[in-house]
């Protein structure tokens, strides 16, 4: 057996040295990979319906994306992903051809060409203090044939030319606590109004000359009751605001520089008023909407500051801004929920009684409530006005409604994935036969004959097109059953909106989706957030009839001691099986390496006060747990205090907490980093599910090194506190990077390295017995990657063949961290060109296949780099035997081979993470990359040595076999005849 493996490995090495890289042919794109583009939850939308041009809508999203979408199909025309800290504040269209965006808290103003999305100009808006940022594009404010853009940002009001982004004038407005809330220009005047609150009780109005920025008039008035900060503008000279107690509506009239307040008690307007009220930030003429209890109340403002209730509707509702559509008329859209339908109403804002449009549309209840509505009008062929509405749902999806139906929808919640796990598909049962997929034998044969023609280069161009089409939409890969190779799986993803999606790995379609009821706002849980997702039950062997399920962990609120939420979801049906709102908080979730009789994995949940809770809460689980009790440890990292602590479980916390599944813990050890010299910036541990094939590493001269393989190792990187910021914020002399390998059971520091003159950000992967980490070297002005390999010195003398043959060795006896194994470490460092966004390592079913590092580059691509390049045994002149082993001569930098980009020509915009999942086929790893976009592919780090390639011609094989059999038969007949003839002679 050992020999066979050696032969196999040697063959493998031989094949490696022949092919240092692998790549994809052009026609293989899309065969096993898929790529989906998203934009995220839409914040602002501006419609642009040029008469001749294509109809489109420009949107900005929470993922800092600005995109132009096709109004007919919802496809993306163009898209820009701004940086993670360049949030888009406002968006508008100027001059009918530029998209203007204001981002980075009002400091960056950019203009993008509307048809193709190219940036036309960019200008920095300077200012002294942080403030709200506002963008206002007056319709008819001209200066030398140039439209002017009014920007308020960083406490200054700016007028910017829309042609080249030049700042025309600038006016400092903000004093200490002034918050400008709105900038507007009454129709037909050259005066710009800027209004805002100072502190909580003063209301300021500025009137500014639009031509030169001169302050024309300033008025200020104090309101003794104080404001809550919420307001709605009702007309060009009036606002309605809520007072600090949220029980009085204050209408603020500021005509001609005179500010007057008028108070109305909400209880006078609405009879059964109690509790909180909230103003909808809508812009309707003479009207505003306010949310009280579970109602939305529209309140009209009559001439003499009188408020009156126009209508009262049930709460889950959303209102759009007013849209001017024909002479002086403005319309707005109102969306309400009713059962499984949503009701869309379009009304004129000065005439409540009549509805321009009233439609009911069937809506998937997994999309939740409507959150935002954007309205747009179009002219029908009969010259009447039609309306289309863009709505953003609770699950962040975007839908376009027109003529009573959903024209298109986008699952943009998938742009903000929090966590991922996988699930197997159901096993193929007798009912689902292969024939269903292969159509019939004739089709199958035809397909293969076509393929054969392709391989023999006989195919015509049309045939090639047919072959390519066949390969791309092979129904084999999108089947809903488990396959032999383990390529087909479900990716279960949890999004920021609290929705679970199950994506099929074959083609990336959404198999089911579930807006988790336990992660929706409710009375008991005001601000639920999803955190992580774990595999809860993976049935195999004896629990085959059960469906697999996942555990979703959430929290009621943002602070760490908020009560936790658990939800269990069946991955076949997509139904929530059970959900719990816990009495304790969740600080950590530790999946234990034991499963109960129904294959449910035991989990330990640690709360903020360091108590451990065991789940599932069954007597069987507690029995199993008690059995392993003394050998379970856990550790916590306090990054803000630079402390790592190790804990052991102590005893049941029965007297204080009446819960038999609760355990007290005690501190075992702690590592306190000196806060003046070290700050934790990165930690990494091995993947829980990683499989390692062997503990021995065989070197070229038949020598053996024993790897130190332990799951209880922690990699910690610390930097000098001065160098914790951006690259360049510290000099090389005052920056250093210290790397630790720590045993998390005993707290023993196994290894420690200092890189002087280096700083973060540090990205690291930990696999088997090695760590690879990426950081910046300030002295060399380059990024570096280092590798550390750990070997067990205490086993190194197990080299007597006879003893090994007879089994007299201690290599398979269980090891304990308390035995203090002696380790040796090998390490090496290389330059690396790219900065890195994420890093991962391939994982295979048995851990035999060699590893590749997957590096998410700054260009949002994924690069596969052989681990062989990061081998500390590399030397400048390797010996012949080392070369045979596959050791590459040492170079100062790691090569970037263009063919080894896993994402080939695609970009995964806003890349945030890379997940690798082992397939059943040993040679293959499934890779899922997520960010704003999603990308999935499968890679074989050592090529597919254990299977035939995709384009293997079975027909050719079949024909060869048939021809051989025929030849055998013919020659047999001939030989019989010849023999007979010989005999007659």
């Amino acid at each position: 057996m050992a020999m066979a493996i050696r032969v196999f490995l040697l063959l493998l090495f031989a094949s490696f040295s022949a092919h240092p890289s692998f790549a994809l042919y052009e026609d293989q794109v899309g065969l096993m990979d898929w790529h989906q583009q998203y934009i995220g939850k839409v914040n602002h939308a501006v419609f642009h319906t040029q008469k001749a041009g294509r109809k489109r809508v420009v949107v900005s999203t929470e993922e800092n994306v600005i995109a132009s979408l096709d109004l007919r199909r919802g496809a993306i025309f163009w898209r820009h992903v701004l940086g993670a800290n360049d949030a888009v504040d406002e968006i508008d269209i100027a001059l009918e051809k530029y998209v203007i965006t204001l981002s980075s808290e009002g400091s960056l103003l950019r203009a993008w060409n509307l048809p193709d999305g190219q940036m036309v100009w960019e200008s920095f808006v300077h200012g002294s203090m942080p403030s709200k940022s506002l963008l206002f594009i007056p319709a008819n404010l001209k200066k030398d044939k140039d439209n002017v853009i009014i920007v308020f940002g960083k406490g200054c009001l700016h007028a910017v030319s829309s042609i080249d982004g030049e700042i025309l004038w600038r006016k400092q407005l903000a004093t200490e606590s002034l918050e400008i809330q709105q900038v507007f220009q009454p129709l037909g005047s050259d005066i710009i109004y800027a209004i805002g609150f100072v502190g909580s009780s003063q209301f300021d109005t500025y009137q500014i000359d639009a031509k030169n920025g001169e302050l024309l008039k300033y008025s200020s008035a104090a309101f003794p009751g104080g404001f809550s900060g919420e307001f709605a503008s009702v007309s060009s000279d009036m606002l309605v605001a809520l007072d600090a107690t949220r029980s009085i509506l204050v209408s603020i009239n500021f005509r001609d520089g005179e500010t007057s307040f008028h108070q109305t008690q909400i209880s006078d307007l609405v009879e059964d008023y109690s509790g909180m009220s909230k103003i909808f930030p809508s812009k309707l003429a003479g009207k505003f909407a306010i949310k009280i209890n579970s109602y939305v109340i529209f309140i009209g403002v009559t001439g003499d500051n009188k408020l009156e209730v126009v209508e009262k509707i049930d709460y889950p509702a959303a209102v759009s801004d007013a849209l001017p559509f024909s002479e002086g008329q403005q319309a707005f859209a109102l969306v309400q929920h009713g059962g499984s339908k949503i009701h869309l109403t379009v009304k004129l804002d000065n005439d409540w009684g009549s509805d321009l449009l009233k439609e009911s549309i069937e809506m998937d209840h997994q999309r939740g409530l409507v959150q935002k509505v954007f309205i747009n009008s179009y002219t029908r062929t009969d010259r009447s006005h039609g309306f289309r509405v863009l709505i953003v749902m609770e699950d962040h999806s975007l839908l376009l409604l027109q003529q009573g139906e959903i024209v298109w929808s986008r699952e943009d919640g998938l742009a903000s994935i929090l966590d991922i796990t996988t699930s197997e598909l159901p096993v193929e049962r007798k009912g689902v036969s292969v024939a269903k997929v292969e159509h019939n034998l004739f089709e199958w044969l035809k397909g293969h004959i076509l393929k054969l023609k392709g391989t023999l280069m006989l195919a015509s161009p049309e045939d090639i097109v047919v072959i390519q089409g066949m390969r791309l939409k092979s129904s084999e890969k999108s089947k809903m059953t488990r396959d032999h190779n383990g390529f087909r799986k479900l990716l279960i993803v949890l999004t920021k909106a609290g929705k679970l999606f199950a994506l099929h790995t074959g083609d990336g379609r959404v198999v089911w989706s579930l807006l988790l009821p336990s992660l929706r706002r409710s009375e008991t849980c005001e601000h639920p957030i999803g955190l992580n997702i774990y595999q809860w039950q993976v049935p195999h062997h004896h629990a085959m009839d059960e469906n697999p399920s996942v555990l979703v962990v959430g929290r009621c609120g943002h602070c760490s001691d908020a009560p936790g939420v658990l939800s269990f979801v069946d991955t076949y049906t997509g139904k929530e099986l059970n959900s719990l709102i816990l009495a304790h908080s969740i600080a950590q979730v530790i999946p234990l390496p034991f499963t109960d009789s129904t294959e449910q994995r035991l989990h330990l949940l640690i709360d903020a006060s360091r108590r451990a809770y065991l789940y599932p809460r069954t007597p069987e689980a507690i029995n199993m747990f008690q059995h392993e009790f003394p050998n379970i440890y856990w550790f916590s990292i306090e990054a803000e205090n630079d402390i790592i602590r190790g804990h052991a479980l102590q005893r049941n916390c029965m007297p204080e907490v009446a819960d038999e599944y609760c355990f007290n813990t005690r501190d075992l050890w702690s590592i306190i980093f000196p806060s003046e010299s070290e700050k934790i910036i990165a930690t990494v541990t091995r993947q829980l599910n990683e499989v390692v094939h062997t503990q021995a590493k065989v070197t070229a001269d038949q020598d053996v090194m024993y790897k130190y393989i332990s799951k209880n190792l922690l990699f910690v990187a610390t930097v000098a506190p001065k160098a914790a910021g951006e690259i360049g914020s510290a000099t090389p002399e005052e920056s250093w990077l210290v790397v630790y390998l720590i045993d998390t059971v005993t707290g023993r520091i196994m290894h420690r390295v200092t890189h002087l003159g280096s700083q973060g950000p540090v990205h690291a992967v930990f696999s088997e017995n090695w760590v690879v980490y990426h950081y910046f070297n300030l002295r060399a002005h380059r990024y570096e990657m280092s590798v550390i390999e750990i070997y067990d010195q205490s086993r190194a003398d197990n080299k007597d063949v006879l003893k090994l043959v007879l089994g007299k060795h201690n290599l398979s006896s269980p090891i304990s961290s308390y035995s203090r194994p002696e380790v040796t470490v090998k390490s090496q460092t290389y330059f690396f060109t790219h900065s890195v966004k994420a890093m991962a390592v391939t994982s295979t079913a048995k851990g035999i296949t060699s590893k590749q590092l997957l590096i998410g580059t700054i260009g949002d691509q994924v690069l596969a780099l052989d681990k062989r390049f990061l081998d500390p045994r590399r030397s400048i002149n390797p010996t012949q035997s080392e070369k045979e082993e596959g050791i590459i001569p040492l170079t100062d930098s790691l090569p970037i081979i263009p063919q080894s980009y896993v994402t080939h020509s695609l970009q995964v915009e806003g890349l945030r993470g890379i997940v690798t999942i082992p397939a059943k086929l040993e040679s293959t790893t499934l890779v899922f990359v997520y960010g704003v976009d999603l990308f999935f592919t499968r890679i074989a780090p050592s090529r597919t040595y254990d299977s035939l390639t995709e384009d293997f011609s079975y027909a050719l094989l079949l024909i060869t076999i048939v021809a051989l059999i025929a030849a055998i038969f013919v020659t047999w007949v001939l030989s019989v005849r010849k023999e007979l003839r010989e005999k007659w002679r």
Partner: protein
Amino acid sequence: MEKGKGVVGRRWAIDFTDNSTAPSSRDIPDPLGFTRASPDQDDSTLSRQKKDAEANWKSQKAWEVAQAPFKNLLMMGFMMWMAGSTVHLFSIGITFSALWQPISALQGVGKVFEPYKDKKVDTLGPKLLFIALNLAGLALGVWKLNTLGLLPTHASDWVSSLSPAQEVEYSGGGLPIR
């Protein structure tokens, strides 16, 4: 030699059979110069000589056969030298044939020397030589196998697929989840 017993009333008959080798039954003297010597008697002396020659020949042949693997050995050696010391299909094929040939030859030692089996011929010597040469061939094969590194003589061959040892303790945790 039926004489037509079923024919009744036959007057005469001539027997055309030539009884020249049988002693004359009708007392016809043999022609002059013809001595009726028994061929059997004559053969016995002749065959003795013949048998001796044959035995000689057999033992000679047996020795030849016994020496045949030597040529094979030389050829194998040459082929092995040609195949080099890296593991690929050719060298593995040659090595395995070099191992298989002596083994199959050793299995059929009896059969190889079957034709030369004789009371007078002593096949033990050739057999021993044959076996020795084949064992040498086998040794050559094994040596080749070793040079290819396919013999489990190193510690690495016995531990290369040894799975990692189990850990007694289990530890989990990390940064608090955000």
